[in-house]
């Protein structure tokens, strides 16, 4: 529709440039990997038919499928309890549930391993595929809960009530609410599938061979970039296949009539509050509190370096980390918004495909491609500055942001902007006054989640961080080796507490900054 040529061109240019900055490095690496010395490197592709590689791909798929299904299921339950049911203590429970997502996965994995060894669990059970699935599920359940919660919030009470008139709650939930939640369910499924597919630390620590550890080995033991890059191409192809079901089921124009008649939100009174409350608490105790309590007890088990000393030791990296993570979350969310707008407005579905592709590339391959691309004299201003970290963040997380924001953007009826346009408002003004406020919740969610991811990102950042900058996950990770257990646990705790403080500040800031009065029910 009519947009002024100027702002549109500028926007497209900026978006294109940014996309190039993020996508080109990987494109170049893959191109070189596939076409070696003028011909297609067939043996790189046929390498996957090796028995071991096939087995690791099989493991990867089993883990990802199991983790994403379990997480979405559990996340859906929690999202319902937190957002649609009047569950006591839900705010505290919500925060507790989030804890595993706030720590780097290797810290959680080590904590669980300690717990299990302490509890005398048999070796064969610890170093196994189910253990990997268990740990990853505890990590990604809060992510699913978070995304699905946003989906619940956008369901108009009228739809549910219309159903309630005719049939039971159970029928309404399965026949009306769940189908309306489809975009949120799909989004969280895809995100978690890919995140667990490219998860390195947990399977590697528990010695479960997966495709990413296979790729990692090509890098770290054989320095074979081409083979690693080709294999990651195959990994991304697997991820792209995922988009087909999404396309098939979600192509129809599909939005919740946001303000059609009256936007109201329906809460459910639980008949028996105790059962779900106890179940939720049990889950949280057994999957969240156990490792955290274990970390705490390890920290204070031994005299010596005090907790305060650990805080002081980490203080410089805390500052750098926060600044860079906030900058990262801002940039990723800003471009998430731009790309969502482009995909929805101009039906540029391929943009999402490209971003998914970048997202699915294993972190280490992303790191190497960024080095190979940006480490040239002319691009040194990027490579030797924190810009390279911001680009790395974008490559890793832009897809997540676009997914969250575009889901929400699709729910805003075209008539809302058309009405403003009819009245002579300029496109940018419409965007600022109508679209942006309606996207507030999604933008906040995106910023919140991306910030958490940026604070914890290790695999790519450790490859590209400029000399002299210290980042929290890198510092903890590089100090973990050979540091006494209580210091390692202490550092993890400090990082955890610190992240919690930031998140609490954000939640508080949201209350002050965002006026969500219009969302409240009548």
């Amino acid at each position, binding site marked *: *529709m*009519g947009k002024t040529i100027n702002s549109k061109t500028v926007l497209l240019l900026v978006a294109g440039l940014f996309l190039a900055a993020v996508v080109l490095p990987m494109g170049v690496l893959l191109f070189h990997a596939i076409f070696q010395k003028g011909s297609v490197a067939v043996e790189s592709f046929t390498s996957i038919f090796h028995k071991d590689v096939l087995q690791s791909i099989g493991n990867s798929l089993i883990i990802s499928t199991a983790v994403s299904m379990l997480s979405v299921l559990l996340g859906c339950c929690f999202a319902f309890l937190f957002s649609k049911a009047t569950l006591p203590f839900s705010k505290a429970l919500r925060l507790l549930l989030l804890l595993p997502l706030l720590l780097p996965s290797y810290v959680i994995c080590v904590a669980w391993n300690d717990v299990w060894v302490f509890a005398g669990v048999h070796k064969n059970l610890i170093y196994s595929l189910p253990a990997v699935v268990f740990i990853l599920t505890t990590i990604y359940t809060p992510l699913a809960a978070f995304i699905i919660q946003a989906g619940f919030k956008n369901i108009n009470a009228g739809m549910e009530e219309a159903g309630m008139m005719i049939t039971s709650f159970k029928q309404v939930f399965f026949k009306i609410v769940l189908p309306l939640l489809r975009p949120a369910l799909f989004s969280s499924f895809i995100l978690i599938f890919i995140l667990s597919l490219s998860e390195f630390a947990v399977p590697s620590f528990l010695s479960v061979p997966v495709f990413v550890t296979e790729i990692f080995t090509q890098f770290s033991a054989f320095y074979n970039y081409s083979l690693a890059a080709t294999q990651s191409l195959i990994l991304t192809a697997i991820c792209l296949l995922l988009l087909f079901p999404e396309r098939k089921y979600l192509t129809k124009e599909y939005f919740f009539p946001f*303000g059609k*008649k*009256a936007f109201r939100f329906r809460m459910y009174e639980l008949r028996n509050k105790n059962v779900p409350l106890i179940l939720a608490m049990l889950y949280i105790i057994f999957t969240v509190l156990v490792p955290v309590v274990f970390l705490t007890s390890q920290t204070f088990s031994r005299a010596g370096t005090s907790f305060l000393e650990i805080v002081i030791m980490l203080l410089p990296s805390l500052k750098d980390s926060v600044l860079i993570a906030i900058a990262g979350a801002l940039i990723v969310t800003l471009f998430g918004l731009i790309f969502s707008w482009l995909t929805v407005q101009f039906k540029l579905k391929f943009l999402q495909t490209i971003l998914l592709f970048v997202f699915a590339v294993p972190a280490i391959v992303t790191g190497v491609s960024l080095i190979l691309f940006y480490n040239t004299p002319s691009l040194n201003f990027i490579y030797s500055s924190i810009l390279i970290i911001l680009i790395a963040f974008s490559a890793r997380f832009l897809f997540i942001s676009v997914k969250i924001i575009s889901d929400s953007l699709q729910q805003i009826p075209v008539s*809302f902007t058309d*009405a403003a346009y009819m*009245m*002579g408002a300029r496109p940018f003004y419409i965007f600022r*006054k109508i679209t942006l406020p309606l996207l507030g919740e999604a933008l906040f969610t995106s910023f919140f989640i991306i910030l958490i991811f940026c604070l914890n990102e290790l695999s790519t950042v450790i490859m590209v961080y400029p000399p002299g900058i210290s980042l929290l996950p890198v510092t903890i990770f590089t100090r973990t080796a050979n540091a006494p257990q209580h210091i390692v646990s202490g550092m993890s705790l400090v990082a955890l507490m610190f992240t919690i403080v930031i998140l609490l500040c954000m939640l508080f800031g949201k209350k002050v900054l965002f006026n969500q009065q219009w969302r409240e029910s009548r």
Partner: protein
Amino acid sequence: MYAFWKKGFIQSTMEREPVIQFINCTKLFDGKTILRNISFEVNEENTFTTILGKTGSGKTTLLRLLAGLEKLNEGCIYINGKTVSEGNKIIVPPYERNIGFIFQDLALWPHFTVYQNIEFGLKQKKISDYKSIIMQTMNEFGITDLKDNFTHQLSGGQQQLVALTRSMVLQPKLLLMDEPLANLDVKLKTQMRKRIKQLAKEKKISIFYVTHDHKEAMEMSDKIILLHEGAIAFYGTPEQSIYSDNSFLKEFIEV
């Protein structure tokens, strides 16, 4: 051939200058024809035209073309003798056509209060003292008390009035309404119909009113357009429609 034809048309407009004119308008969506070679004209000001048709017959698209929210694929649209859309170009953008649009879902912005909703358009027009205009119009529609409410706090009828007020403060010459009463109960519907009809008379505006309710069309219109699968199946006054033996019209009324 098209150019030649157009030339002939321009000469003819010198004599009559209809209020609204569609000439051979065709609109495609994803290769599917939504409107096929539509031509009609509305000759007098202050005409209430109803567009009737089943779901998917192209009613809404016709309105959106007239509003300038969609481009044509072929043909021309004229308002007061001025070309507003031609071929696949929008000549006059929607906001310069002096048209009010009431959307099917009303498109009341949920994050604005009633007052802010109404104020929005006036702010764009850079009118200095618009407050008095708003207060006066809100008074006319009897919604002054609602001014600080969010729109979801209103009843269906109240929302209807807010949407009308929002359009009317901009003093349009032409008001397009896309099934605005679909969500109201029968009693309210009757009330609102009267209100709209009265409004059209008072303000001397032309109205294009989309509905699939045949009775509504008979009761309110000066002219009826019946769309069938993207083409005009009938165009005339309500009286003419009663005596017409147009098969599409008959079929439509029976349903």
